[in-house]
């Protein structure tokens, strides 16, 4: 753990001003981007809440206006679904306002904070309410009008709101376009399909309406109605109670449901209509939209139909579907309301489940389009043969236990409804007829039909006919959970005498894959429906032919495929950028300075005015200039931190100099300049791959140069290293000295013309140092040159022909070692009597006498011969123990550098 933290600590850059500033800038940009991404954007619309009164009710409404409108704009009335309020359609309203429409949303009477009672979209109540809203819109100065009291308006709504759109358009010709979604054609047929009461959906909605009695109003005074009816109008409530009790609507109930059905006004609708219906909807199946479409189109009004994978059971469906529906809606409004854009084509679009999304477990659908709406009988049909004998099935008393097809009102069941899971049949209460595995896939889109014969001792039977898709593993799926309930009367008791009855199954959209089988199931119960209370035993038979409507469409290009083009674009840009970069580099490479400074062409090394200042202001090298000639062994001498290593680093192209130039054989040296190949180096100690042996390391190094093997002069280098058999041991086991020798050998590989060694004798023992001295002196023959850096005076004095003394980044002396060492004018004298000696010497006329220690004197001779000095002292009776000529480089070094042995830095 500590190793890890140490490693991380090392990995983290040291903080200094140069790093902190860009890091802080980067952080600031990131933070700004994050803030920008989550910033609360100003709404592109404005809204006001209203209470619009009339006909004894007060409607809770909200009016949206686009913020950046110029002049008058057309209006859209958005109606909500059953049990909702103006807030349920908030996001739709907002996005429409964003598109430049004035949007009026309201809570229908009997819901939320609106007063009044629920009359089920009655033309006398809810529809009249909506008409008053149109009146109100016409008075608004922001709304475009066609004529006085005739606003340019479209009505959009789903389910309860969809039916309102249809009924309003049928009753009020001021409506210019409607987009009814997932709604009914005939409420009676929807709630009592095939004569069987859809008890679970009806109960769900009745409960929903009643619930507003206690939940709605939020503190407002509620009219305390009948607890059995909640906010339902008395006649609606009565109709429900009647229907739910008997399962068969009576005359009054039928009339009431009829009145609330768009079917009655379809021929009066003149507003272009976009019908959007969900394929996963056991309440208002696709057949409802089909009936609406046919009725409206009959009068010549433009109608377009679209299906999506969703509905009352399936919700708004997968993202691609809701996007398509939104697009179609906007396109419709754009053309028929704003008068912009081309007229929407007649193309019919639908979608089919393709699988599951990998990212969020959601369903994924593929969109298809066909030139025209084919209805629910498809553009073609495929017959499938199912086999099975007539079978007896039992009707359970009171429908319990009952089979399950869908779970109304649960919502979000899309996944299970389309992939099996929910549907369940009760043994003894159903009979199956199954086909052989399909040889080809069938794209079913529409309502399949089967022919059924049934016999019942009571003469009546309530049956549920379903079509299952069964995969090779036996998993059965009841597509969208849809069943066809049929109530048959006048049945014989004997199946032999039963007449065939054609049953149209609910329209589905499904690809039944090859290898799957189709099963027709006839059941006696379903928990969603009200079945006869008395137990009975029916006999049922299914004719062998099942007709499946098919539809061939063009796949709508998946908008997702655009990302692949984007990817190709990104790759293209990157590759293009790379090419441009390479071309620029090539050009710069061609244009680089390759001139050879003629005067230095034969000089291994010329350093001119070199300066290196680091980013943090530290100046490692102030100014250094020196020359290394062929045949020379030049010592770069200086205390630790004098700038020697920095100089060598610049020399190897590892560090960029701040100023100054370096020429190697006349070629200007920059980082990575090819001329470096004529330089061998040991800088800052050895660097080897620890897992390789010394020999392998040298080999790996030479391979990295890419130069011919025979140029390496391996044997000579190995001899210099003198490692013997150890050369085959891993370098991680080497001693410091061994590594040092191997590094020197590496530097000498290929016998470079200039050898640069940084502290070469570091870690060597005295015999090895002596040997190294000889090697270096020998090396500098044949026109080669050596540059050695050292802080050891003796080494430089003994090894080098020339010396450059640096201190604090400056050269303090340079020249031949002999010159620098020279004949020192001073000697060190050890005498028995310092006082007398001093006096004698001063009489001799020496330049200076300095006492050093108890018995030592440093004497600047000023030309006086040493013999004379000794003679004079002896004559004066002073004993001379020792006379040492001060001609060591140390003297020069110390006198030049001064006694400040502290470096200018630790780099």
């Amino acid at each position, binding site marked *: 753990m500590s190793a890890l933290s140490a490693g991380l600590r090392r990995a983290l850059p040291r903080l200094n001003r140069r790093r902190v500033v860009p890091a802080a800038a980067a952080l600031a940009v990131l933070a700004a981007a994050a803030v920008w991404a989550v910033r609360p954007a100003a709404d592109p619309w404005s809204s006001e809440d209203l209470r619009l009164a009339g006909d004894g009710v007060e409607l809770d409404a909200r009016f949206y206006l686009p913020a950046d409108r110029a002049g008058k704009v057309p209006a859209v009335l958005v109606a909500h679904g059953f049990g909702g309020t103006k807030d349920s359609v908030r996001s739709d309203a907002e996005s429409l306002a964003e598109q430049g429409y004035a949007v009026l949303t309201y809570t229908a009477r009997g819901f939320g904070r609106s007063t009044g009672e629920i009359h089920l979209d009655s033309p006398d109540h809810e529809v009249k309410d909506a008409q008053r809203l149109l009146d109100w819109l016409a008075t608004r100065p922001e709304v475009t009008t066609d004529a006085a009291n005739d606003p340019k308006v479209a009505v959009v709504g789903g389910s309860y709101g969809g039916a309102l759109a249809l009924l309003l358009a049928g009753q009020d010709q001021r409506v210019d376009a409607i987009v009814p979604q997932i709604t009914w054609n005939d409420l009676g047929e929807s709630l009592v399909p095939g004569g069987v009461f859809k008890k679970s959906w009806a109960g769900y909605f009745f409960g929903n309406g009643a619930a507003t009695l206690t939940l709605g109003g939020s503190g407002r005074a509620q009219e305390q109605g009948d607890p059995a009816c909640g906010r339902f109008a008395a006649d609606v409530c009565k109709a429900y109670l009647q229907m739910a009790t008997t399962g068969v609507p009576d005359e009054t109930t039928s009339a009431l449901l009829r009145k609330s059905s768009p079917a009655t006004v379809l021929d009066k609708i003149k507003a272009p209509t976009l019908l959007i219906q969900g394929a996963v909807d056991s309440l208002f199946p696709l057949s409802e939209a089909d009936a609406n479409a046919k009725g409206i189109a009959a009068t010549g009004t433009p109608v377009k139909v679209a299906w999506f994978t969703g509905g009352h059971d399936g919700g708004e469906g997968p993202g691609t579907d809701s996007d398509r529906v939104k697009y179609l809606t906007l396109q419709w409004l754009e053309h028929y309301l704003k008068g912009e854009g081309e007229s929407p084509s007649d193309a019919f679009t639908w979608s089919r489940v393709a699988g599951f999304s990998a990212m969020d477990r959601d369903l994924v659908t593929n969109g298809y389009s066909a030139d025209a709406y084919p209805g629910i009988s498809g553009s073609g049909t495929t017959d499938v043969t199912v086999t099975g004998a007539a079978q007896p099935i039992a009707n359970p008393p009171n429908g319990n236990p009952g089979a399950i097809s869908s779970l109304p009102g649960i919502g979000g069941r899309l996944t299970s409804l389309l992939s099996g899971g929910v549907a369940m049949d009760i043994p003894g209460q159903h009979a199956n007829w199954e086909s052989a595995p399909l040889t080809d896939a069938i794209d079913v889109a529409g309502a399949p039909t089967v022919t059924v014969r049934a016999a019942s001792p009571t003469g009546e039977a309530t049956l549920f006919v379903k079509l299952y898709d069964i995969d090779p593993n036996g998993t059965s799926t009841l597509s969208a959970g849809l069943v066809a309930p049929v109530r048959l009367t006048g049945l014989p008791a004997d199946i032999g005498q039963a007449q065939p009855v054609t049953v149209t199954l609910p329209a589905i959209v499904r690809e039944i894959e090859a290898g799957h089988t189709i099963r027709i199931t006839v059941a006696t119960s379903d928990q969603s429906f009200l079945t006869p209370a008395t137990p009975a035993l029916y006999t049922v038979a299914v004719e062998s032919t099942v007709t499946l409507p098919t539809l061939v469409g063009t796949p709508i290009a998946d908008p997702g495929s655009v990302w692949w083009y984007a990817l190709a674009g990104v790759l293209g840009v990157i590759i293009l950028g790379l090419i441009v970069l390479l071309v620029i580099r090539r050009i710069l490479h061609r244009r680089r300075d390759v001139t050879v400074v003629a005067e230095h062409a034969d000089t291994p090394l010329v350093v001119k005015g070199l300066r290196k200042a680091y980013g943090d202001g530290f100046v490692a090298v102030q100014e250094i200039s020196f020359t290394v000639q062929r045949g020379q062994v030049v010592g770069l001498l200086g205390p630790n931190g004098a700038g020697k290593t920095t100089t060598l680093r610049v020399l190897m192209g590892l*560090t960029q100099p701040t100023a100054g130039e370096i020429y190697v054989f006349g070629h200007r040296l920059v980082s990575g300049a*090819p001329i470096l190949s004529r330089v061998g180096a040991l800088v800052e100690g050895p660097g080897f791959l620890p897992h390789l042996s010394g020999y392998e390391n040298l080999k790996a190094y030479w391979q990295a140069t890419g130069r011919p093997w025979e140029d390496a002069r391996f044997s000579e280098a190995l001899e210099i290293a003198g490692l013997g058999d150890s050369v085959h041991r891993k370098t991680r086991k080497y001693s410091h000295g061994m590594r040092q020798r191997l590094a020197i050998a590496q530097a000498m590989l290929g016998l470079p013309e200039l050898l640069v060694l940084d502290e070469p004798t570091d870690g060597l023992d005295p015999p090895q140092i002596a040997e190294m001295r000889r090697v270096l002196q020998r090396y500098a023959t044949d026109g080669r040159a050596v540059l050695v850096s050292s802080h050891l005076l003796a080494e430089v004095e003994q090894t080098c022909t020339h010396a450059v003394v640096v201190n604090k980044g400056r050269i303090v002396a340079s020249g031949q070692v002999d010159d620098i060492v020279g004949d020192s004018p001073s000697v060190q004298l050890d005498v028995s009597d310092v006082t007398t000696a001093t006096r004698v010497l001063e009489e001799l006329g020496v330049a200076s006498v300095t006492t050093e220690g108890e018995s030592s004197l440093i004497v600047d001779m000023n030309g006086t011969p040493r013999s004379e000095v000794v003679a004079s002292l002896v004559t004066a009776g002073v004993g001379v123990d020792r006379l040492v000529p001060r001609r060591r480089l140390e003297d020069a070094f110390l006198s030049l550098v001064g006694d400040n042995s502290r470096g200018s830095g630790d780099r």
Partner: protein
Amino acid sequence: MSTVEAAAGYKASRTLPIWAEVRRQASRRRTQLALGFMALLPVIVLLAFEFGGGRRDDDNDGGGGGAFSSMADLATSGGLNFALFGLAVSASFLLVVVVALFFGDTVASEASWGSLRYLLAVPVPRARLLGVKLIVAGGYSLLALLILVGTGLLIGTLRYGWSPLGSTIAAEIPPAEGVLRLLGITAYLATTLLVVAGLAFLLSVLTDAALGAVGGAVLLFIMSSILDQIDALGDIRSALPTHYADAWMGLLSTPVQTEDMAKGAISAVVYATIFWGAAFYRFTRKDVTS
């Protein structure tokens, strides 16, 4: 007068040949261990299934484990599923570490050994040094991935047979197409790992500590994965490099869903380009002080 620009036989474009770098890395214990473990993992998983089997029927907790548990249940259904399982369990961490190791260690370790300066003094041009290191690290990462898939496929097929590629989210895929899907998944994973590769390589250039580069890349990758789980971040998460890490599952459904994979590939390629670009920019300008 000697005016030749370089020593005999020296050519900048011939320095540090790719094979030399391959050998440099191949001789390292960490390379051998990483590659060896890739081959060993499927064997370990196989042994775990063999000896730990028999009690798996009591974990039918439904959606609890989600896609993962279903993938584990299917792993023994055939070689393709076994190889897929090996990939899936390695994708989120093991492969990240391995790729971070190959890319994060490559420059930083040379720096910490001190051999980097000698390579630069050869001189190997800095851009070339990075380029060769990048190619070789990429090659080893790909090799590791292929070893993992190949070994999984081989021993899975030997033990569990050659069966269609099954998944809980779609119909079975016939073996021949299943191999293509598996290769596609491998290719997508390789693409998403470019983010780690880029990040680790950048850190490798910025620091001399190999551990720091590898650990830093893994750390940031995990941080991104954690942030991706915070729903409150909303759409910002799409910009996280790990957001599309699981998009390969789209290849298990029929027809394949590739939208998220395309997005993921764009994200990975862009991130890798930025990171590698920064690495090249920095390295070709910096003072090598190690």
